């Protein structure tokens, strides 16, 4: 009888101890959480509040109303979606063959070829945007070579428009697609392909019916990252778009820098945020986001 009482005490003590330890360990995150709260959560909440305050200082939906009424805002949202979608689709078609090629190479060669993906990845996005500006300009190399070889006679307008923006964005986003895709292709067991060919599949059938479906999680994760990053993109369209490609993030900036209109900027920011979360939410229904974000056990 007495032993069981002691057991009970001990059990409770252990439980308390475990709970305390869980809290202490969680407490290790507090400096990081504090930073994120002050620099991200509170300001974004503030912007949310500002977006509902009209020019007279009272609650109003005027900023959202204007977004619905104005044709120019509709065009900005349309452009943002179009550019993000096109960037993602082009990245998929360019990235898949390269990731597949890399996943087939022997380790030593693959590591060297992988540098072609990693070098742009660690190089500043501003530097790469600048490179494309120089390459694509009227007197740039691409126009020079094209005219010297007789492909076209007049310098083509390659930059300060949609095509320039897309070229730059695809170059910047491609590593974000290839890296998760490559990782997922590498994790496909070779035995599956052998099994499928053993069962009589031709190489083409094995690829489309076994390898391709198994590489889908990586492809989806990569596309999601590219699409989400593109939605909020700013630097590349601002430089390579030449004022013809206006995306939401650019409009937010000019609302603040030129017009000091915090309400309008905040409302746009809120819509951009909601769009991002909507995409993430839809994605989370289609795939396991843990693969994209890491974490968990």
């Amino acid at each position, binding site marked *: 009888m007495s032993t069981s009482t002691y057991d009970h005490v001990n059990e409770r003590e252990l439980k308390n101890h475990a709970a305390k330890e869980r809290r202490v360990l969680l407490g290790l995150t507090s400096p990081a959480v504090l930073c994120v709260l002050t620099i991200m959560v509170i300001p974004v909440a503030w912007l949310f509040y500002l977006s509902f305050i009209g020019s007279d200082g009272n609650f109003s939906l005027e900023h959202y109303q204007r977004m619905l009424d104005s044709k120019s805002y509709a065009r900005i949202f349309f452009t943002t979606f179009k550019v993000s979608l096109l960037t993602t689709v082009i990245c998929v078609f360019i990235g898949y063959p*390269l990731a597949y090629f890399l996943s087939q190479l022997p380790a030593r060669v693959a590591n060297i070829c992988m540098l072609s993906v990693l070098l742009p990845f660690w190089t500043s996005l501003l530097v790469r945007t600048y490179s494309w500006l120089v390459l694509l300009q009227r007197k740039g190399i691409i126009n020079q070579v094209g005219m010297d070889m007789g492909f076209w006679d007049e310098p083509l307008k390659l930059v300060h428009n949609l095509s320039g923006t897309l070229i730059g964005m695809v170059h910047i986003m491609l590593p974000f697609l290839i890296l998760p895709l490559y990782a997922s292709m590498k994790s496909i067991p070779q035995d599956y392909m052998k099994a499928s060919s053993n069962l009589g599949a031709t190489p083409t059938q094995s690829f489309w019916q076994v390898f391709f479906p198994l590489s889908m999680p990586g492809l989806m994760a990569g596309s999601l990252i590219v699409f989400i990053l593109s939605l909020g993109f700013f630097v590349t369209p601002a430089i390579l778009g030449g004022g013809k490609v206006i995306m939401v993030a650019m409009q937010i900036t000019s609302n603040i820098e030129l017009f000091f209109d915090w309400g309008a900027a905040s409302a746009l920011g809120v819509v951009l945020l909601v769009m991002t979360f909507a995409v993430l939410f839809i994605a989370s229904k289609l795939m396991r986001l843990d693969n994209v974000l890491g*974490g968990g056990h």
Partner: protein
Amino acid sequence: MYWVGGTNMNWFKKSASETQITHGQRLWLYIVAIIIMFLLVVPTLIVIPMSFSASQYLEFPPKEWSFRWYEFYFSSNSWLSATATSLKAGVYTMIVATPLGVMASYGLYVSSHRAARLVYLLLITPIMIPVILIGIGSFYIYVQIGLVNTMFGLVVAHTILALPLVLIVVTSALKSYDMGQEQAARSLGASRFTAFMTVTLPQIRFSIVTAALLAFLTSFDEVIVAMFISGGDNATLTKNMFNALRDQIDPTIASISTIMIIVSTTLVILTQIFGRGKNVK
């Protein structure tokens, strides 16, 4: 796979592997892949030869070589002070974000508190939401408390952008690390702190160095937040470059770009040398 040794015709007729079509049949794949790799690398590095051009128009190949754009850069106080600001911000961000991120990932990984998953998501959010929101949000807050154009403000804002990367890299290292080792150390009398410092930390060292490098590069390359909250004496290199690019194609940018490529590439190579053979897989 025989794909390296095959210069003769047999290589074309040989299957890429026992379950695949022949190399000849998928020659297009090799050609496409090589073209894409070329298109990834060359535009990244093309600024290096161009930065040595003597001409205003950055032709390629340069008709005449010179160091004039470097001379211009090294004699310009505003570019040099912006470079110093960027390097300082990068180092400070690294010094702040790495320990905070390591602490947080360890805490979240080991603690089985039910809020852990939620806190992880919160800490990862800064790379999921559009950076512009953090840019204008931090600007708004900093105006109220007088942190605009300060190094401190810049470093704190860059830290929250770097934290998610540190968290992802270190968490994945902890996942592949055998926590049993730390438990063994503790059962032999080491405190949790001692066990972490002497047993776990040395084994995830390479990942922590990688995380620190990513933290530095996040800050060093960051444009949008810096555009809003850095300025005056504390304007970053990227902010000044971006402003210069909006106006015209200034060839000085080519020399600065070359320096930036050298900085990031050197750091990556150093990390690789440091971590060779010491990584916990």
